């Protein structure tokens, strides 16, 4: 099964760029990498998804090296409201519809 490894927690200050790296050594050829954000007492919500190289949307960028064994979520100019848990998600090596959420990274943004 594809597993992910992320830092348990990170601290940052408002206005800084935050980079959260996820390791996924067993990622399968057809798997995509997806990041979610979760606030307390809410369900996770989709942030960004990519397969290789770089993907950017209105809230984040995702950098994926050629070997795809890791990925980095980049949040530009974070604010206090970006304090949340961020999950890196990859598909199951066996295919199908099973998904594995890691423990996530707890980001705390300070004023």
């Amino acid at each position, binding site marked *: 099964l594809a597993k992910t490894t992320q830092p348990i927690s990170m601290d940052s200050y408002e206005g800084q760029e935050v980079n959260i790296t996820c390791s996924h050594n067993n990622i399968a050829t*057809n*798997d*995509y*990498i*997806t990041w*979610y954000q979760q606030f307390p*007492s*809410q*369900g*996770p*919500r*989709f942030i960004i*998804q990519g397969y290789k190289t770089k993907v950017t949307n209105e809230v984040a960028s995702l950098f994926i090296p050629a070997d795809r064994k890791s990925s980095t979520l980049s949040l530009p100019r974070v604010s206090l409201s970006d304090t949340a848990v961020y*999950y890196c*998600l*990859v*598909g*199951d090596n066996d*295919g*199908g*519809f*099973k*998904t*594995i*959420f*890691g*423990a*996530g990274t707890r980001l705390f943004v300070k004023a």
Partner: protein
Amino acid sequence: SQTIHQWPATLVQPVGSPLSLECTVEGTSNPNLYWYRQAAGRGLQLLFYSVGIGQISSEVPQNLSASRPQDRQFILSSKKLLLSDSGFYLCAWSGTGASSTDTQYFGPGTRLTVL
């Protein structure tokens, strides 16, 4: 647009009592449906997923069960709750693509406390 509902929002139940949590999706057909549990301060644990009516796959052996009586209805049940069943229960749906990383959309969750 698609919406996902869960109820109840909070629930306090004694040990040994039954459980029924309901999840419904609107605005889409034949979704993949998921039940997750999240213990306090922990990540999400996939409990069940379903690719169609009556088709349930269990990820973790436990005293919980799931059913999908209708296309957009997913129910999580237990005959006898344990203290360890306490947690935040999340239902999610995704489109019927072949990739296991199709974007999942989560409901508001049910906070279950077993006393």
